């Protein structure tokens, strides 16, 4: 780390600016040269115009609200289920031995392949997208919660017991505060995969939401709009992730 600090901030800034400028200039050059198929690499001006047009349209915010609502609902459902499952797995050795392998095994499977099943169960409207997001975020949150419970200092638990705390009091006064860092981390991972799960489902089959807008731009070959939407989406999801990360650090 000490080595990295010796590099002056000014030169770092210059290098970053140079790389960004180089990428943008190359992009514009490729766009103007017509080397790639026309419109695949639209000019920066066209993308900027599409960005402004998208951000200025009421339609976009309607779709964004649909997606945000779906991701939020997915996070509440999948997060609550993951939290309960994780605390149960973390606090009982028996439950952990019996069921945790399944959680670990299903964790790294590509969740999107369950989408046809979710359509059958919850319909083609928002229900199946929320279900996709919820399945996606259940696993990281459950795994983090279980790890968080195991990392709690035994002393805290004994203090709670000696005060004869009820299970509810144990959960809210001892377990949850002691697991805060693990939970925020799980929530961060969970939010990322919930966004991916919900939006991928929207691109596959839907008529509302940002995922639908992106795939519709692709289908109608409106490339500037597609780039604009992807940029907005990335800014929003990286921003949300950074915000949660800051939350985890500031209150420690």
């Amino acid at each position, binding site marked *: 780390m000490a080595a990295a600090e010796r590099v002056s901030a000014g030169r770092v800034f210059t290098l970053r600016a140079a790389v960004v400028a180089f990428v943008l200039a190359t992009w514009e050059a490729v766009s103007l040269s017509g080397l790639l198929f026309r419109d695949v690499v639209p000019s920066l001006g066209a993308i900027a115009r599409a960005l402004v047009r998208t951000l200025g349209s009421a339609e976009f915010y309607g779709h964004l609200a649909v997606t945000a609502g779906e991701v939020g609902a997915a996070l509440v459902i999948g997060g609550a289920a993951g939290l309960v499952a994780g605390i149960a797995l973390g606090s009982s050795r028996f439950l*952990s*031995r019996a069921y945790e392998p399944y959680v670990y095994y*299903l964790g*790294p499977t590509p969740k999107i392949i369950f989408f*046809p099943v979710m359509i059958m169960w919850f319909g083609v409207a928002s229900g199946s997208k929320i279900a996709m997001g919820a399945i996606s975020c259940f696993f990281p949150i459950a795994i983090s919660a279980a790890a968080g419970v195991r990392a709690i200092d035994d002393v805290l638990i004994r203090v709670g017991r000696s005060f004869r705390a009820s299970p509810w009091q144990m959960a809210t006064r001892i377990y949850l505060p002691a697991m805060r860092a693990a939970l925020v981390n799980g929530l961060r991972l969970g939010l990322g995969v919930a966004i991916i799960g919900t*939006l991928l489902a929207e691109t596959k089959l839907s008529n509302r939401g940002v995922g639908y807008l992106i795939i519709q731009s692709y289908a109608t070959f409106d490339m500037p709009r597609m780039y604009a939407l992807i940029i907005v989406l*990335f800014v929003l999801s990286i921003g949300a992730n950074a915000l949660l990360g800051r939350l985890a650090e500031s209150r420690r």
Partner: protein
Amino acid sequence: MRSDVQARVAGAATLVGALCLVEALIRAGAINRFVVPLPSQILAAIPRIVDEEHVLARFGQTSLEVLWASVLLVVVGIPLGVLLHRLRIARAAFETWVGALAAAPLVLMYPLFLVLFGRSTTTIVMIGFAAGLAPVILKTLEGLVSTREVLLDVGRSFRLTPRQQFTKILLPAALPAVFVGMRLALIFAMINIVGVEFLINFGGLGQLVNELAERYDLPGMYAAILFVVAVSVVFYDLTARLERWLRPNG
């Protein structure tokens, strides 16, 4: 030890019990059998998807895509990690960017890849590659940075050339971390490759699930999903074993 075995048996028994319950509920008419097929039908569909849908050939195709993505990851990702380590200024400028890349929902860019590379194997491989790139770079860098100072001093006292210092000291010391990064990257690549196959209806296992869903072949679709889950489990387990085996004092 004995209680561990009991717990595993209890876990497996719950699974079997739940399947039997679903079977009974469907037979009793409490669950619509056109929404959830009978578990016994799903089991019966397994030989069919092996014979008629060539699930093994599709598995081979998906594996080949994962293999190509991992070749790209080794050839591009590890050198980029080394580069960030060698050039301090590059590391200061871009380490946080690579970290942000790791958190970005890259797979959502698949329509962009479709435009650039068409509906082809290239698109699928490139998405797998993009999904795994950040962990390889970051773990390679981490491994190189955390090389013990003593080892570097040994190299210096033997007056190794920078090249020898790299191949004899730094790289071997960083290898365990590099493998951790490669394993993460492979898992990300596999998830995204199967997902994109499903989404763009092209390629191996993911496409099979999509095709069976579109044909409304429910038992076949559930069986194919089961197969994908099995493949992920085996893949996850094998790479975990490989990682433990490669770790020097593990």
